[in-house]
């Protein structure tokens, strides 16, 4: 990790519960994430791992517990929630690009609207980011003309344009055709190498093993096991982790 502020606390999660009606999805999660750390979250579907991620930037409001990012409490009802979210980028499984805007407009919209940059500056930053994800020639294209892998790379560029200190990835490659998974993971790998603090919910075990500093195995609404990739993948302690990994790695 080359980031100068590595080692300071980026995210602090205490006693996180989330209930949808009668269904308790998260049953008490405590988790600290250090600046510059890359955390991959794995687990069976329906285990609550996406909900966990969506609570971090308050797309889901916790039923109980607190979440702090950079020491600020994330609360959907708080007046400053929009400002707090500006510093937390998110990438979605379904890309969620704005189809009525061009690729460049998708990227510049938030920095300009939130008064982070002038229009010109945002365009310059946008071009740099598009170059980085290999899509400089698509600046004027409409999202619907792009392939899935291209869409997701634009979505990553859009999130990065706000210069967030933390990036959340919610199964970013799950909706992609297999041949496009690599191009998106490459961008994420590069981001991790640059020292970005990242939380990735993923089914890409190879990626998690290679890039993560820490792996969280979430099952039935709790962190059932956590540790370095070598520990979790190489020598899982919890039978549920063993069971899950056996199923996934067989496939």
């Amino acid at each position: 990790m080359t980031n100068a502020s590595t080692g300071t606390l980026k995210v602090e999660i205490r006693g996180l519960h989330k209930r949808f009606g009668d269904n308790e999805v998260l049953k008490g999660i405590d988790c600290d994430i250090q600046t510059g750390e890359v955390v991959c979250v794995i687990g069976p579907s329906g285990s609550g791992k996406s909900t966990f991620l969506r609570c971090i930037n308050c797309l889901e409001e916790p039923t109980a517990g607190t979440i702090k990012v950079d020491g600020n409490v994330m609360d959907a009802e708080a007046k400053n929630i929009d400002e707090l979210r500006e510093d937390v980028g998110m990438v979605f499984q379904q890309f969620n690009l704005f189809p009525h805007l061009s690729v460049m407009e998708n990227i510049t919209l938030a920095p300009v609207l939130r008064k982070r940059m002038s229009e010109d500056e945002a365009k310059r930053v946008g071009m740099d980011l598009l170059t980085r994800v290999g899509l400089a020639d698509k600046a004027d294209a409409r999202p619907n003309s792009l392939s899935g892998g291209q869409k997701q790379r634009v979505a990553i560029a859009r999130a990065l344009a706000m210069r967030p200190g933390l990036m959340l990835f919610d199964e970013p490659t799950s909706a992609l055709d297999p041949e496009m998974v690599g191009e998106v993971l490459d961008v994420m790998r590069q981001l991790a190498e640059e020292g970005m603090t990242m939380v990735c919910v993923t089914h890409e075990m190879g990626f998690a093993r290679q890039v993560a500093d820490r792996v969280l195995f979430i099952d039935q609404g709790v962190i059932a096991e956590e540790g370095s990739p070598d520990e979790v993948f190489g020598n899982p302690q919890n039978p549920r982790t063993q069971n899950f990994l056996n199923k996934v790695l067989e496939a």
Partner: protein
Amino acid sequence: MTFFELFQQSLPLLLDGLGLTLVLAFVSLAIAMVIGIIASLMGMSKHIVPRTINNVFVTIIRGTPLLVQGFFIYFGITGLLNVRISAFMAGVIALSLNAGGYLSEIFRGGIQAVDPGQREAARSLGLSARQTTWRIIIPQAIRICIPSVVNQWCITIKDTSIISVIGLVELTKVGQQIIARTYRSFEVWLIVGAMYLIVIYLLTVLARYVEKKVSLDD
């Protein structure tokens, strides 16, 4: 009198009638769009009172015939309150309330049809609820709504003919008057029908052009 002579003689009167039809439709639809927007916002409100008002309004508009609505406004309400309003005013009120009710459902459907992921993506970038609604949701909802809105415009343009019964001399009424003098039912209704058809056709051509222009698939 040949068909051509009948056509020539009737045309100025019919064009006058068409003029009133178009004015009636245009004014009513302009007001209906405003009613529709306000009613749809009420229908999507967090609070129960505006939602209930919208619900009652839409239920009444959808559940009763336009003809009854026109009679109720022109004769019923004016009689009860002992006021007199012009037939044109009554026609505008009836048509704009009627179209407004249907449009409010179209607008609500359009906004709710926008993928929830769009709002989530916008909020995750730090956009406020208001910025998200105006910059992300509404522009997409409008595109979704266009075909249904144009459909409602066509219906309302034709519904002006129903309003002729309260004494407005619009296109259909002019047709009746000419037939009363000439007994040329077949020809006159043919011409009147063609005039409505041309107006609606031009509108749909324009709508298709706009729809294509703002389409998201390219």
